[in-house]
């Protein structure tokens, strides 16, 4: 690929149209999250958690996912800061807001789960759970099926830096690097240097988290997750390795946490961490990728899109009491009590 390099970091570059695509998605994600933070304060929603400060990396990730259903495609074991990844994959912002507003139309959880807890079967996006790090125990399972199935699908698992202290992070390394059974797992750590209020440097004895892969022969890379050019290429290399070698790779992205941990900690904008959006704007202007009008236009368009979506969401219905037990069980021909779904204890079924 020797396309004209419009934005450059070291030896790596991205063409202008790609940069603008990334930028637009980053702004969309930012506007979405900022609006949802407001929703958490206005009562249009309750709890907010999300990824402002991670957009550069997360968009580059989403754009490079091999998107689809089944083992031919990538599986995504995400955590709760991946809205930008989902947008880059093509999710409409409204589907995040539906979850934020706890509507029955929320396609991820029908108003049950916190915002950012995505689930989307046709894209292999597995249900995000709040339980830190457990996704790392599951990724080898999807990767095992993929390896056996053939093709170049991989399993991508994403979590935070503090969470790597859970044993499940080690489990993922162990299960992905068994002799003769190496698995195409891309382990991504979003290192924002915080676990809620706890500073990473007070808890981590290891210099780089990816160093923990070395004893297992798992290659790794640390990347500036605020830089879309560096991130894009690091992700491309990592994916390429997993797809081709059918083995694990670790990527550690250094990112910001621009609104603190969540609405529980106030979700106020912090000032002392790099903002990937404004940094990119500066670089685009300097490199002539776009002008100020373009930037203003993107901001306006994306903001308008979000506002419009919100209006729509707020008109949509809430779940109702009969929804409480729905989707507990999948229909089963060999279940005498719950051949369809669940609604109450055995012999106390509402429907009967």
């Amino acid at each position, binding site marked *: 690929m020797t396309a004209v390099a419009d934005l450059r970091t070291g030896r790596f570059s991205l063409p202008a149209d790609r940069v603008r695509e990334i930028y637009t998605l980053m702004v969309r994600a930012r506007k979405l999250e900022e609006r949802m933070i407001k929703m958490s304060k206005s009562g249009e929603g309750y709890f907010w958690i999300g990824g402002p400060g991670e957009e550069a990396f997360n968009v580059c990730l989403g754009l490079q996912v091999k998107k689809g259903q*089944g*083992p031919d495609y990538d*599986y995504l074991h995400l955590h709760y800061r991946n809205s930008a990844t989902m947008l880059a994959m093509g999710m409409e912002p409204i589907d995040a807001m539906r979850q934020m507003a706890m509507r029955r139309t*929320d*396609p*991820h*959880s*029908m108003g*049950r*789960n916190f915002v950012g*807890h995505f*689930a*989307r*079967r046709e894209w292999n996006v*597995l*249900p995000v*759970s709040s*339980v830190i790090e*457990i996704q*790392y*125990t*599951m*990724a*080898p*399972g*999807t*990767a*095992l*099926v*993929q390896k*056996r199935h053939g093709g170049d699908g991989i*399993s991508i698992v994403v979590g935070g830096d503090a969470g790597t202290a859970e*044993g*499940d992070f080690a*489990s993922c390394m*162990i*299960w992905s690097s*068994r002799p003769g059974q190496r698995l195409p797992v891309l382990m991504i750590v979003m290192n924002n240097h915080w676990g809620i209020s706890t500073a990473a440097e007070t808890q981590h004895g290891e210099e780089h988290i990816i160093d923990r892969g070395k004893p297992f022969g798992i290659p790794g890379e640390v990347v500036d997750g605020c830089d879309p050019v560096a991130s894009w290429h690091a992700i491309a290399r990592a994916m390429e390795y997993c797809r081709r070698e059918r083995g694990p790779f670790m990527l550690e992205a250094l990112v910001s946490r621009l609104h603190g941990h969540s609405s529980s900690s106030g979700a106020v904008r912090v000032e002392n961490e790099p903002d990937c959006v404004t940094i990119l704007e500066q670089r685009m202007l300097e490199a002539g990728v776009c002008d100020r009008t373009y930037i203003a236009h993107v901001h306006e368009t994306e903001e308008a899109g979000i506002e419009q979506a919100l209006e729509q969401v707020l008109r949509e219905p809430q779940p109702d009491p009969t929804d409480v037990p*729905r*989707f*507990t*069980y*999948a*229909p*089963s*021909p*060999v*279940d*005498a*009590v*719950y051949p369809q779904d669940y609604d109450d*204890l*055995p*012999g*106390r079924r509402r429907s009967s």
Partner: protein
Amino acid sequence: MATLVQAVRMALHYGETHLGVTDIFGEDVGPPLGGVFTATQGLKTAWNSPLDERGIVGTAMGIAYAGGRPVAEIQFCDYGFNTIDLLKVAGNQRWASAGNYEMPLVLMTPSGSGIRGSLYHSHSFESWASRLAGWKIFMPSRPLDAYGLMLSAIVDPNPVLALLPKALLRVRGDELLPGEPEDPEQLKAMIDAPVGDRSAWQPQWPPLEEYFIPLGKARICREGADATVVSYGRTLPLCERAADELWEERGLRFEVIDLRTIFPYDWETIRTSLLKTGRILFVNEDTEVTNFGEHLLRRVVEEHFYDVLAAPRVLQGKHVPGIGLNQIYEQNTVPQLPQIRQAMLELAMEEP
């Protein structure tokens, strides 16, 4: 006549050849051992995992997500207590994602006392398991049920936990499985791995047939009108024996119900029997504080308080921190034949 563990093995063989089972795995599940109780000898999809129960459950979930049909084993249920969070999540994925994903996995694990297992090979798991909403749980007490329930577990698209009563694993049934040869010695020669070097050994599977016992269907083992006793697993044959003795010695006819499925339990069969006899006893060996039998008792009290002729009751294991190795401990910790017989007699004789 097959033993219970042979029945499980044959069900798994049927599962991997006819019902799409892709992976049977866990610690020492693959060759050369084929499971510490031989449940997985000679199975073509059986493999050995790392010594990591969290990885086992997580990987099973991943395989299920990706379209595989895993049967994972926890070597003893006593070693599954570090995975309760994952079990909760496996049970809630369909509900949490509002139907995006199913979770067609089977987890099997030996449960209960009776093999002189001391502190960590004698726990019961059914009371814990019954709290895991979204799971189905069964515990067979005879080979035919183990076979038929395991096939159902495999085809059911929900997570199913198979609790195998350790004490009964080597006990033969008195009915043939569909397709099983008449001569148990012949069966043994066909499917039990030889002692010593097994590297060249291949099992010869009998022409097994499909046989589903629906989940949620109890079995009436003895009919009777004087009183009802409900049990499962190790204590079920003891209840049968006590019923036989009380018939011979006292002319009392007990209705003995093998619950078989812990959840969803067969409430219709229980209540029908209760309404017939007016007297009911639940027997299990799990510890007696917050025990699944107490749940069933609550259903009786809630719905049939004015229908019973004697106080409904439960007989359970003692609330102590473990089961000691010296048999003095085990004998005095979990119900044995004399206590069961005594409880049954008292139930039948109680004059309100």
